[in-house]
């Protein structure tokens, strides 16, 4: 090598330092100072920033809305994991194992909602749930089930469950592709061996496919959990804004309301710390529960 040590370090600095400075300013610093803000009572202006120790955390524990937002978040996590995994698994198996000629068409169609804006998805589905013109209620009327029609997003009981379907609708495609990738890597010889042993397709699915794509299933579940805890508030904000009567508030949308609508920035930061801690704990627990030795035959 002709270049000297000094030149090497110059080049290294050129490559790494500007990027790292930007990353530090716009990602690391905000996260840590968010932590710091959570110990202040602060309405946004410099004069009104008062150190209050753990008061925000005490307020958090006594805030009657907080437990609801946590439950709502985990409700979305659980229903999305179950709904997306069952459907994505079914579609992935159907499209790879069952030699359907038009499989590429389904793959392309099912994936598309994954790259749609949450705003577009949210507004479309708000319309689908519209009490008078919406597809859901019109469909129920068409089937003669008028009694089941209701103002879905306007009902305290039904608003939150109504958010699950758009989330599944928008999420399936990615996990379908991830699972299809896993199935494609399973060697054909396992299925041939299973067939010789007299296993039917259903048994093949349970004994061969499922154990061998367990890594992909595990990653998919983790990914759904992380993205839901970190981002469920976006669809909530677009479709219901947390209402009616806080019945759909999740942790993130409540943070937004506290910080950017009511200007309790310190308390908002405290909610942010809670989101961070809960999502880290959840991921750790999940990884512990889903540890399972890689299956090899």
């Amino acid at each position: 090598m002709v270049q000297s040590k000094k030149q090497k370090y110059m080049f290294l600095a050129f490559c790494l330092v500007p990027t790292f400075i930007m990353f530090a300013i716009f990602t690391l610093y905000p996260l840590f100072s968010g932590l710091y803000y959570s110990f202040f009572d602060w309405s946004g202006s410099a004069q009104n920033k008062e150190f209050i120790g753990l008061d925000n955390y005490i307020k958090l524990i006594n805030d009657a809305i907080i437990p609801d937002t946590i439950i709502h978040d985990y409700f979305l996590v659980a229903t999305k994991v179950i709904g997306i995994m069952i459907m994505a698994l079914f579609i992935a198996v159907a499209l790879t194992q069952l030699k359907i000629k038009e499989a590429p068409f389904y793959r392309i169609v099912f994936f598309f909602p994954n790259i749609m804006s949450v705003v577009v998805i949210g507004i479309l589905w708000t319309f689908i749930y519209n009490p008078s013109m919406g597809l859901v209620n019109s469909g129920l009327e068409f089937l003669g089930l008028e009694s089941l029609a209701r103002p879905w997003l306007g009902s305290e009981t039904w608003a939150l469950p109504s958010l699950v379907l758009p989330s599944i609708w928008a999420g399936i495609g990615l996990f379908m592709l991830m699972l299809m990738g896993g199935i494609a890597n399973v060697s054909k010889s396992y299925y041939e061996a299973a067939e010789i042993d007299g296993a039917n397709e259903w048994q093949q699915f349970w004994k061969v496919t499922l154990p061998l794509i367990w890594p992909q299933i595990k990653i998919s579940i983790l990914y759904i959990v992380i993205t839901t805890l970190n981002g469920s508030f976006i669809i909530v904000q677009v479709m219901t804004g947390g209402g009616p009567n806080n019945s759909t508030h999740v942790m993130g949308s409540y943070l937004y309301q506290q910080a950017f609508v009511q200007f309790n920035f310190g308390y908002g930061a405290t909610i942010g710390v809670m989101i961070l801690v809960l999502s880290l704990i959840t991921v750790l627990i999940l990884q512990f529960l889903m540890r399972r030795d890689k299956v090899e035959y």
Partner: protein
Amino acid sequence: MKKSVGQILGRTGIRIPLILWSIAVLYPIFWMFLGSFKSNAEIYRNPWGLPETFNWQNFADAWTNYNIDTSVFNSLIVTVVGAALTLVLAIPTAYAIERINFKGSKFLFTLYVSAMMIPMVLGWIPLFFLLMDFGLLDNIFGLAIVYAVSQLPFTIFVLTSFMSTIPKSLEESASMDGMSPYRILWKIITPLSMSGIITVTIMNAIQFWNEYFMALIFLQTEGNYTLALAIDYISSEAQYTNAWGTLFASLVIAIVPVIILYAIFQQRIAKGMTEGAIKG
């Protein structure tokens, strides 16, 4: 192997849920396009059918009366500047992490990648005041910077794995010929990584074009709204104005560029997103 009657029936039966789900995905999207050609009265009368005539009035209204022209322009700027800045920041770092031996390269990589899993919502509160101090609050270039940095981890991640497939011998011989590392990065590595760069840029661009929540927090005046914010605004106004046709037209304007990109780059996008998720 003989196929039983049950299996043949099963093959047909398996298509039914697939067809139903295709309809569930496509119908709302078609319906949005159809709605954009209907008058408001027609939307009430016949919300889910075909329009009587195709008229472009809604698009004209959205474009001129609802400032969609400005927000399309803003979204374009944010998308292009954001995507370009992401590359400028990510390519050198990805190269250094992948190819240059230095202490802490593993740590740096882990630091960037683990940022993908951290909920950034906590950081948005301080970021709001930081942008205010920099005079970048309510500024589309400020938003573009925030976007670019937010996609840095993912971009570095994809580019390092792409660069690891480039044979080392090319750089070595160029270095023997006396080429400086800067020129190697610019003249050899960047062109050879072009496929990865294109994939990651398309995905970043779609991400920035679609983004809603950071724009909601960091932009405040209507003149600076990106498309997602403008649509959200029209949507909340439509409760009172009933301008549903305009709303659909603006949704169509937002989604058409994404559909075009998807039509051209479908495989790249699908591959990039699954790989990003699997390895991350």
